[in-house]
C-alpha cells in the first residue's frame, strides 16, 4: 500500500475554491430575494469563477498526487482554463436568457459551478476510478442542467434522452473499465501504460474492455456512433447550457480521452487505426447531417460532432508516433479555439432568440439589415467554424492537419477526408449567413442587444481574430501544456 500524503490536498486549492464557491452560492441563494437573484447570484458566480483563473494559472504544477489519482500538470491546467472561461461566458449568457426562471437561477449557477468542478477533476484524472467518478459527476450535473427549463417539453425530453443514453453508456463504460482492470491488474493509467508496453501487454480482454470504454468517451465527446444524444440534448437544453456542453464538456472529454489514449493506444497500430476510422466517420456523419438542419442549435450540435472528428484527428496524430507533441498541441489548441467560437456563436443565438423567440434559421431571415453588428460578429464565428483565416478556427484546423500530415503518409487519407469535410461544412455554416444576409427582411425591429451578450460576442470574436493574427502566445501556452506521457 502506497503512503499517501494528504498534504497534497494543498495542490487542489483551485478546485477547493470552486467547491466553496458552489456552496456559497447555494447558501446565498437562500438569503437573496427572488427579484435581485438573477443579477447578484450570477454576478457573484461569474466573479468567483474569474477569480479561480489566477489560482489556476499561478498554482505550480505538481504532477501525480493523492495516490496517483489526479495529476496537476500544465495539460490539466490548460483545459481547466478553457472550462472555467466557458463557464464564465455561459453564466453571463444565462443572465440574459429568459427561459431560466429567476426562482431557480441560484441553483442553476451552483450546478454550473459544480459541473465546472467535475470537469476540473475530469481533466486531471489519471486513474480509471477518478475518471469514472468525475465523468459521471459531470454527466449528472449536465443531465440536470439540460432539463432545467420547466414547462418546455423539449428541455425535459432532451434531458431524458441525454440521461438514458448517458447512464446506459456509463454502464458500458464501467463494465469496460472492469475488464481493463481485470486484464491489467491496476486502475492507474501510469501503471497501466507500463504493463501494456511489456510484452503481451495487450490481451484480448483488455482490448474488449478498452473498446467498451471507448463508448463512454465517445459518448462524452459525441463521437459517431455514440453521438445520437447530442442533437436532441443541444436543442432541448437551455442555450447557455448548450454552449457549456459543447465547449467545456467536450474539451474535458477530449482531455481525458487523450490522457487515456496516450497511455493505452500509443504504439498500437490497430487501435490508432480504429480511432482514425472513428474520426473520419464522426466528421463525415456530423457534417452530412448538419446539412439537413434548420434549427441552428441542432445544426451546431451536428457541427460539433464534426468538430469532434477533427479533434480526433489530433488524437490520432498524437498516438500514432513517437513524437506526440504536435498532436497534443493541436488537440489543446483546437479545444480552446472551438470553445471560443462556439461560445460566441451561442451568444449571438441567444440575442437572436430574444428577438425571434425560436432558433430556426428561417426566422433569421434578413436580420442583418436591422442588426449589422451582431450579424457581422456571427459571420466571424461562422468563418472561424469553417476554418478560414484570419480566424481562430483556421489556426486550430491548421494545427490538426499539420499533426496528421506529420504523422506520415499512412494517415493521409484521413487528412483528405478532413479536407472534403471542411468544404461540406462551409456549405451549412454559410446557409446561416445566407439567411442572415440574403434573406428577405421580416421586420424592422432591432434586437435589443443586451450589453452582456454584446460583450461576450465581441470579446470572443475579437479573440477569435486575435488567435489568428497574433497566435504566438496561444500557441506557446498550448505548447507548454503538452502532456508528456
Amino acid at each position: 500500500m502506497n503512503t499517501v500524503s494528504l498534504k497534497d490536498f494543498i495542490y487542489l486549492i483551485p478546485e477547493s475554491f470552486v467547491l466553496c464557491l458552489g456552496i456559497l452560492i447555494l447558501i446565498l441563494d437562500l438569503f437573496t430575494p427572488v427579484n435581485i437573484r438573477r443579477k447578484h447570484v450570477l454576478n457573484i458566480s461569474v466573479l468567483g469563477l474569474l477569480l479561480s483563473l489566477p489560482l489556476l494559472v499561478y498554482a505550480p504544477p505538481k504532477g501525480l498526487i493523492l495516490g496517483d489519482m489526479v495529476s496537476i500538470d500544465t495539460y490539466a491546467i490548460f483545459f481547466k482554463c478553457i472550462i472555467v472561461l466557458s463557464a464564465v461566458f455561459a453564466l453571463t449568457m444565462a443572465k440574459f436568457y429568459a427561459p431560466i426562471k429567476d426562482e431557480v437561477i441560484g441553483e442553476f449557477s451552483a450546478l454550473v459551478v459544480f459541473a465546472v468542478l467535475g470537469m476540473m477533476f475530469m481533466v486531471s484524472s489519471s486513474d480509471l476510478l477518478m475518471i469514472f467518478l468525475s465523468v459521471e459527476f459531470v454527466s449528472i450535473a449536465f443531465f440536470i442542467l439540460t432539463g432545467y427549463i420547466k414547462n418546455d417539453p423539449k428541455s425535459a425530453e432532451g434531458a431524458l434522452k441525454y440521461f438514458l443514453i448517458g447512464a446506459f453508456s456509463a454502464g458500458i463504460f464501467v463494465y469496460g473499465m472492469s475488464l481493463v482492470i481485470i486484464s491489467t491488474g491496476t486502475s492507474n493509467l501510469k501503471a497501466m501504460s507500463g504493463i501494456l508496453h511489456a510484452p503481451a501487454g495487450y490481451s484480448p480482454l483488455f482490448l474488449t474492455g478498452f473498446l467498451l470504454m471507448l463508448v463512454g468517451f465517445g459518448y462524452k465527446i459525441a463521437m459517431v456512433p455514440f453521438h445520437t444524444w447530442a442533437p436532441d440534448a443541444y436543442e432541448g437544453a437551455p442555450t447557455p447550457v448548450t454552449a457549456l456542453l459543447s465547449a467545456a464538456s467536450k474539451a474535458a472529454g477530449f482531455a481525458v480521452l487523450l490522457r487515456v489514449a496516450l497511455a493505452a493506444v500509443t504504439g498500437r497500430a490497430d487501435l490508432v487505426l480504429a480511432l482514425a476510422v472513428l474520426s473520419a466517420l464522426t466528421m463525415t456523419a456530423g457534417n452530412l447531417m448538419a446539412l439537413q438542419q434548420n434549427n441552428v442549435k441542432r445544426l451546431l450540435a451536428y457541427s460539433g460532432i464534426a468538430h469532434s472528428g477533427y479533434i480526433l484527428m489530433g488524437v490520432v496524430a498524437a498516438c500514432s508516433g513517437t513524437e506526440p507533441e504536435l498532436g497534443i498541441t493541436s488537440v489543446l489548441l483546437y479545444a480552446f479555439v472551438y470553445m471560443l467560437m462556439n461560445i460566441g456563436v451561442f451568444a449571438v443565438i441567444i440575442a437572436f432568440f430574444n428577438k425571434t423567440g425560436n432558433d430556426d434559421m428561417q426566422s433569421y431571415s434578413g436580420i442583418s439589415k436591422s442588426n449589422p453588428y451582431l450579424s457581422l460578429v456571427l459571420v466571424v464565428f461562422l468563418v472561424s467554424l469553417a476554418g478560414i483565416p484570419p480566424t481562430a478556427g483556421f489556426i486550430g484546423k491548421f494545427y490538426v492537419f499539420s499533426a496528421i500530415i506529420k504523422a506520415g503518409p499512412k494517415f493521409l487519407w484521413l487528412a483528405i477526408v478532413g479536407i472534403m469535410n471542411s468544404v461540406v461544412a462551409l456549405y451549412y455554416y454559410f446557409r446561416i449567413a445566407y439567411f442572415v444576409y440574403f434573406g428577405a427582411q421580416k421586420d424592422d425591429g432591432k434586437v435589443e442587444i443586451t450589453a452582456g451578450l454584446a460583450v461576450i460576442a465581441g470579446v470572443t470574436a475579437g479573440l477569435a481574430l486575435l488567435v489568428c493574427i497574433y497566435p504566438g502566445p496561444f500557441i506557446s501556452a498550448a505548447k507548454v501544456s503538452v502532456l508528456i506521457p
Partner: protein
Amino acid sequence: MLLTLVTFIPLIGGLALLFVPKGKDDIVRGIATAAAAVALILSVIVLLGYDKSLAGMQFVEHRIWIPSLNVTYYLGVDGLSIAMLVLTTLLSLISVIYSYNITSRVKEYFFFFLLLETGMLGVFLALDFFLFYVFWEITLVPMYFLIGIWGGPRKEYAAIKFFLYTLFGSVIMLLGIIALYFASPSHTFNMLELAEQAPTFTKLFQNVIYAALFIGFAIKVPVFPFHTWLPDAHVEAPTAVSVILAGVLLKMGTYGMLRVSFSILPQAVLYFAMPLAVLAMINIIYGAYCAMAQKDLKKMIAYSSINHMGYVLLGMAAMTTAGLNGAIFQMFNHGIITGALFLLVGVIYDRAHTRDIEGFGGLGSIMPVYTGIMMVAVFASLGLPGLSGFWSEFMCFLGAFQVQNTWMKIITGLSAIGIVVTAAYFLIMIQKVFLGPANEKWKSLPEINRRELITVVPLIVIMVVLGFLPRIVMELSSKNVDSMVKMLGAIKP
C-alpha cells in the same frame, strides 16, 4: 513599411467605414475612394522605386510572426508581383468609383470590398507561405457576400458555388503547404528558403505536392474542368465585383503557380509541363467555343476569360523566357482588358437591364462614344496588334512554340485556333450589338456618363500605350524570368 501600408490601408479604410453613422452614404463612398486611392498612390510609389535591373526581392519586410511555427510576416515585391500589385490597386480604385451606383447597404458593400482588396494585395506580396494562405483565404469571404448580397437573380447559388469551389481548392492546397513545411529541412514557410531547399525534395514528393497545389491554383485560374464556377459567379456578381474577380482574382491562381510551383517544385513543373500545356490548349479552345455559344454578354466575357487565361497557362507551360514574360504580361493585360469589358457591359446593363446579345442592335448609332470604347477593348481582347493584348498573346504563343518538342508545337498550333474563334465571337457580338439597324427599343439609351468614363478611360489608355510600348511592363519581369528560366534549364535532364 511601404508594402504593409499598401496592403492594410484598404482594410483600415474599411474599418473606418464601419464607424460612419447610418445614412451618410457619401461619406462612406469618400472614405472608400480615399483608401483605394491611397493604396494606388503607394503602389505607384513602389513601382517608381522598383529597380527592374535586380532579380531579387525588393521593399522586403521580414518580421517574426508565429515563432513556434517559424512563421514570419514576410512581404516583398519582385518582377512576378510588381505588375500584379499595381493592377490590383488600380482596378480596385476603378471598381470603387464604379460602385458609386450601389445604393443598398453601401457601408457593408465598401467594407467587404476593401477587405477583399487587402486580401488580394496580401496574396501578391506575401513571401511566407502561411501568410500567403491566410490572405488567399481572406479573399473568399468578402467575395461571397459581395456576390451574394449585391448580385444578380441567382446570386446565392453563384456565391456559394464560388465559395465551395475555391475553398475546396484551397484546403487541398493547405495540405500541400503543410507537407512542404515538414519536408523542408529547416521547417519553414518562407517561400524563398523553400525554393533554395527545392533540391532536397524527392521527385515523387514534388509531384504530389505540385498536384495538391495545382488543384488550389487551377480552381482559381480557372483551368478546365474546374471552371464552372466562373461563368455563374461573373454573371451574378455586380459589375465592379466582376471586374475584380476577372481582373485580379483569377490572376491569383496563375501567380500562385509562378511564385510557388515554379520556384519551389521545379522538377514537378518540368514533369507536368506537357499536361499543363494540354490543359492550356483545352482552356483556350474550349473557352473560346463556349464564349461563342453565349447569348448573355457578360457570360460571353466570362468564358473569354477562361480562353484568355489559357494563354497565360500556355506561356507558363512553355517555360521559356518569351513564354513566361508573355504569361506575366498577359496576366496584367487580361486584368486591364477584361476589367474594361466588364465595366462596359455593366454600363449597358445599367441602362437596358438586359445583356442579351440578340436583343440589341445598332447601338453604334445610339451610343457612339460607348461603342468606340467598347471596340477598342474588344480589339485589345482579341489581340489586335497595336493594342496591349496582342503582345502578350503573341509572346505566349511564341514562347510555347520555341520549346524543342514536337508535341508542344502541335499543341501550340492547335491552340492558335482559339485566336480565330476569339475573333469570331467578339466580332459576332459587335455586329449583333453595335452594328446593323438601330433597335427602336433602345433609341433613348443615354450615352456613357462621366463616372463611367472616368473608370473606363484609364484602362483604354493603358491598352493603347502598352500596345505601343509593351516594354514598360515587360521589363519589370524580365530579370526574374531570366533567372527562373535559367534555374529550370539547369535541372532539365
